[in-house]
């Protein structure tokens, strides 16, 4: 799961990009027609299909893309958010993951279960963050739809603080 916005390539590249060939198939559902046009003017669809987020996270991406020029009408925003949050939600059709061994400790199992709903565990295992930064990261994941309760988030944060510490 990634923070805040796709923040993708500037529209400057839009016209220079030849027509996108061999696009992956978008899943059926209301909003498909909008997404398949509005969201491929500047970048490949692959990146959308790789992300897994809840409605809050996807809404942020959609707003971000509108700021960058994507043509999604006001009345269509929630349709698009629902489409993305349904088809690319935590735990749905996850891409293949790389096996990573995390340090033993309380919370390890929760990290292995919850974090992989959206992304490869490698992204957790390589990180070294200070205490406040781990608080911020886990809090953000919770905000954008990570499948964990507030109590589980506390355990996960404590584990990450202790086992994967960085500069304070």
């Amino acid at each position, binding site marked *: 799961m*990634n*923070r*805040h*916005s*796709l*923040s*993708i*390539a*500037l*529209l*400057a*590249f*839009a*016209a*220079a*990009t030849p*027509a996108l060939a061999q696009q992956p198939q978008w899943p059926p559902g209301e909003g498909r027609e*909008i997404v398949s*046009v*509005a969201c491929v*003017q*500047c*970048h*490949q669809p*692959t*990146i959308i299909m*790789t992300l897994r987020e809840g409605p809050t996270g996807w809404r942020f991406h959609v*707003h*971000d893309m*509108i*700021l*960058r*020029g994507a*043509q*999604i*009408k*006001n*009345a269509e*925003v929630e349709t698009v958010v629902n489409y993305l949050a349904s088809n690319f939600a935590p735990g749905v059709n996850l891409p293949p993951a*790389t096996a990573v061994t995390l340090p033993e400790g309380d919370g390890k199992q929760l990290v292995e279960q919850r974090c992989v709903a959206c*992304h*490869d565990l*490698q*992204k*957790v295992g*390589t*990180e*070294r*963050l200070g205490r406040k*930064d781990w608080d*911020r*990261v886990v809090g*953000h994941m919770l905000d954008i739809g990570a499948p964990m309760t507030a109590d589980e988030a506390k355990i996960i944060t404590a584990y990450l603080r202790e086992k994967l510490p*960085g500069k304070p």
Partner: protein
Amino acid sequence: MKDLVKQFLDKGISRRELTTGLTAAGMTSVAASAMAQNLAQPTPQAAAAAPGAVRDMKGTGGALFTQQLKAAGVEFIFFNPSTADAPIFDSLVNEPGIQLIKGVQEGAVVAMADGYARATGKLGVAIVANVGLPNALCQMVNSWKDQIPILLAAASVAQEAVGREAFQEYEHIEQMTQPITKWSWVAQATEAIPETARRAIKYASTAPSGPVYLSFPENLLRTEASAQIYDGALFNVPMTMRPSKDDIERAARMLIEAMNPVLSFGDEVTLCKGEKELVELAELLGLPAAGGSGALGFWSKPFPTRHPLYIGAMLRQMRFPGAVDVHLNVGWKHGELYMPGSKQISIRRDPASIARNAPVDLPMIADIRLALIDLIDAVKSLATKERLKQIADERGQRVRDYTSEQAKILQKIARDHAEGSAIRMERLGVELEQWLDKDAIYVCDVDSGKRMDPFMSFGGDDKSYIGTGPNILGWGMAAGLGVKLAHPNRQVLSVVGDGSFLFSGPQPLWSLSRYQAPTTSIVLNNKSYNNERNRIWMSGGTQFKAGRDMTCYLGSPDVDYAMLAKAFSVDAEKVQDASQIKDALARAKKANMDGRPYLLDVNIQRDGIGASSAWHPEYSIAGLRTRKV
């Protein structure tokens, strides 16, 4: 007809009466209007008739150069000195007509000249040290791609020393400039220096404008000679080409009869000062107007961004207005690539790039403003007022319905980010819109920071926007000085990313401080090449999969940009929390009003793919040591 013209020139009749009379005498309204327009403009030749326009002069090569610049209207020289170009600066000791503006690195010097040229439409003159020329070239790519008139000059080794490995001589120095200049030349004789300068000015200023390079062997600058100095009007002839009447009438007819037309526009509108006419045409025909991007579509905003006909960025496939049948592209190099399958009309001032990458049904080379004037007149002559009103109302209503809905999204996003302590681009954009004066100039040298733009209003009677097309970063703070110099009575804000700041280094701060340039500079400090990381990670490569940012993290070391500014005697502060923005901006404005530059180091939230991560490859050169030395 001759009598009518004579009466007009003798001020016996008005321009409108002349147009009416010519039309009654059998001319089309377009041709009559064009003739009236031409007759109303003072010609360069008329200006040249002033006494003293050509004068004889004796002096060093340096003095001949600066006097020819002055006669051409040059008021400022941006420079970084070298020993060899001393005769140029000797000549200015008692010359109050040209002000020197010093930069301490050649890139900053060119960026200052570039900012000045963009803000005025005049020639920017930069003189740099021979050995530092490659530094200047980096920033000059911005001028080259955006067609900004810059005269870059350097003193080179004496003619007798060329090829002998002289002090600070290096091979191919002039050739280095050739790929990004319209003209590159080594002066051949002292007495020819004014003529060489005139040629350089002409090449730089004539549309399509752009940078030129002059090299002066140092012996030529020292030597005295006699030569003639010309006033600028005698040789620097403005290109006021108009399109053919037939083409204009055809375009007007296509636009009137179109079922679903669209207007795209680019920076050539700004270069030709045709902003007002662009809006007038859009309103006359109810045209949805889409902004450009990429080449000659990015560095200015010639159409008001809050205008109800402005629909945002042009895309390959526009969901609104949908399938377009006629596409009018005005002054945008990239524009012709859009809307394939529609009838393409393109009005450009650059004959080399029009219809280069895509077919154009109706291409026209012209001064953009004059072409728009002719097109407006042609439209008015081909349809009654009632019909035009009906067309504009019908088309315009559809566009207004769309843009008013889009405005609601912006308001919602702004509301979503109105609270909280994190400083996000959206929040800062809203705050800046409230803080900036109505006639402020916003100088933008950011990549991810462009996301703030929709929260601010530019163009028309509103704020001016000046950026660069190629995004050669490290331009913004220095360019801000050039812009302020051009418009000392307007508020100037320069926004750079932390990446951009580090590209230029702190050198622009030296000039801002030295010349008491009361601009505000904002460093959007997100500790990352944020957009770069996003673009890399969006490809889904190994860095994305492993969560390892191998290239873009800037937070180690965590640079204190406010402290850097203070080292140059520029007042500055760090802004860590959203609640601090308003007060910090107020302090910046107060400092500017008091005549001082100010810098805000804003802790902007990193965003996008991988934003949470602070991981970066740890490596220590100290750790390689086997001895503590």
